[in-house]
């Protein structure tokens, strides 16, 4: 019964948060709703005994990632609220809704068609969740873990390349630069 409650709450958090993300016109509000949604998902993690992940979800996701979002939103101006009633692309929204609705129906149908599991856990985990996860990460997924480092390096280098303020002469025209170059 307890799980039911967590489930309903978590789902409500997650889905309402998601709705908020797509419906609130102000990006800052959207970001906050994203936090709510992520928190809801974290609750669902907890409900499924993924405690470590729930923690990471809150700390990394809601903590770091959304902060990053907010930071950028602030950087480029909070006042840029979007009028979500305006849709410049003709037919985009109805089509999107149609496609999404169809997709949802399909996905639900696909899941619903499966055997009923009855909520029984066939196996239980040994040890603490963190231990379990770490054992997995450092055994089966050791290589994956190693290469996440590459991913992060790429992200950092990429961010540097993209966000680095260009040297002043970059505002010159191309030809000027080339002519002026030694």
């Amino acid at each position, binding site marked *: 019964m307890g799980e039911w409650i967590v489930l309903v709450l978590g789902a409500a958090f997650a889905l309402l948060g998601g709705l908020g993300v797509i419906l609130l016109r102000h990006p800052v509000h959207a970001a906050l709703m994203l936090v709510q949604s992520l928190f809801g998902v974290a609750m669902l993690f907890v409900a499924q005994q993924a405690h470590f992940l729930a923690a990471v979800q809150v700390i990394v996701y809601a903590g770091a990632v959304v902060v990053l979002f907010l930071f950028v939103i602030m950087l480029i101006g909070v006042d840029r609220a979007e009028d979500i009633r305006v849709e410049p*692309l003709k037919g*985009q929204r109805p*089509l*999107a809704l149609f*496609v*999404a609705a*169809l*997709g949802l129906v*399909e*996905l639900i*149908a*696909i899941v619903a*068609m499966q055997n009923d599991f009855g909520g029984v856990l066939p196996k239980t985990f040994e040890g603490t969740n963190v231990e379990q996860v770490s054992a997995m990460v450092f055994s089966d997924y050791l290589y994956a873990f190693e290469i996440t480092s590459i991913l992060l390096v790429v992200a950092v280098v990429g961010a540097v390349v993209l966000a680095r303020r260009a040297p002043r002469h970059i505002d010159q025209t191309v030809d000027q630069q080339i002519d002026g170059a030694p």
Partner: protein
Amino acid sequence: MIDLVWLIPALPLFGFCVLLLVGKRIGEPLSGYFATAMTGGSFLFALGVFADLVSRNGEKRSVTKVLFDWISVGQLDVKASALVDPLSITMVLFVTGIGTLIHLYAVGYMHGDPRFSQFFTYLNLFIFSMLMLVLGDNFVLMFLGWEGVGACSYLLISFWFEKDSAATAGKKAFVTNRVGDFGLMIGMFLLFNATGALTYNGVFAVAGNGGITRNTATAAALMLFVGACGKSAQLPLYVWLPDAMEGPTPVSALIHAATMVTAGVYLMMRVAPVLEVADPVVFTVIAWVGGLTALFAATIAVAQDDIKRILAYSTISQLGYMFLAIGMHANAAAAFHMITHAFFKALMFLGAGSVIHGMHHEQNVKLMGNIRKWMPITFATYLLGWLAIAGIPPFSGFWSKDEILLSAYEGSVGGAKVLWVVGLLTALLTAYYMSRQVFLVFFGKERFLHSTTGGIVPIHGDSHDGNHAPVTPHESPWQMVLPLVVLAGLSLTGGVMNLPFSKSLERLARWLEPSVGSHEFASTGSTKVVLALIAVACGIVGIGLAYRLWLGRPLEANASLEPPLLQRAYGVDSLYSSVIEKPGRKLADLVADVFDGKLIEGVVNGSGSIVKLVGGNVRKLQSGFVRNYALMIAAGTVALLAYALLRAAA
């Protein structure tokens, strides 16, 4: 001597090659004499071969001489080989004989022409082709000659290609002949298909032992006859011959009177064994086509003003006689008339040429008159030719025409008697229009004299000296006169070849019998005499009529005798033009512009356009808006998920 038969065509071929390569350097008149010598030499060899053949007895008078394999694929085995037999050697003799004379004549006639040597190049090639036509022992070699003479005819008719009319006439001759050739080819194929052979002997051997069904034989015979109609200018393919008169006169004499046009007759005689197997209706067809052509052309001839056109229609008419004879199974009579006709018609053409030459290329008989005063020899020889064609005894034409009429009278084909009457009528008309021509040209007033200058102002063609000052008619040089005299002699005496008085005097018929078969006349002597008298009477009536009308009264009074319908030759040319040429052109336009240009090209280019069109529309999806792209991805995903559901359900 027979072994040397290949030298007969080889000499003109050699002449052709030499003239082709160095003719221009040899120049005038040497190239002309050279060509004449080649043809003459070939005539001499022919005489030798003839003598050899005569010295053999009947069975051995057919000799095949193989030179090399020509076209040989599987059963199709065509050799370059000559069949020396009475028919072929007879043809060879008169082709080379008359050919030599006309070569000589041409040396004079073509004097001063800038393409003098070229003319003789063509003439020699023509002689070679004609010899291949008659000497070949198989249909294909005959076809080689057949097409070769056609090509030479084309080249020679359009010899003066600067004139559009000459160029057109040459083309017309070739194309019309091709229609006939089509028939000839089909005929050949039918025979080959039925017999597996293309040699005469091979085909006839199968035909002789019943190897060809009647239907095949009939079809083959009719198709071959189509070919003959084309070459020999019979209805309905005769239209090219009158136009062919655009060629130099020696060409008209040689090709379009004496030799080439008789090829059709030769062909029908040659394939006699096949005709025998065929349904008799074939003979009826041949006889009627021949008879009708004879009459038809004769009626046109009465209203023509061009001296050569009159002769041209006359030629068509006379060729009609020959086919009439073949239709009546009288091959020897046809051959007889073919030879005598070659004599007198060549004579008349050459005479006409002489007149034209003397008149500085004036051809309208209405603008002539009293030429006998200026060109006595030409006049004298022309007279002989006239009497011969008019059927006045004892000139050669009388004998041969009489035999044809006799065969028609006795003939067994449907409507033979009618054809006999047609023949008589034609004889009358022939006498009439030839007399008209003679009277207009040689008698009466000198209508050509220009009132102020006292001479002729050349109206067209080249005057030899390029000087347009008035000139007067003159007799031709000896090179032209000599052949006239020789041919006049032959026209006078040609009948000797085949006199009907006794079997032994029917030399030609007996000579040709191994090749073309025999034909016994049933009529008794008295019937023959009566018939001959009727024919002669027709001739005399014709001459008399012409005398009354054309010498006895002013020309203007005779306008009604030349109705426009006849002058326009019944309008057949324009009929053909509107029935065949114009729709043909329309069809060609339709094919090229509409069908090819629009339909097929439309499909081809259309497929390109469709690609562009589709591309243009699909391209609009690529709107540049990232959310549209995402939508596309989403839609694709949803579609694939639907596939997943459907496939799982299935």
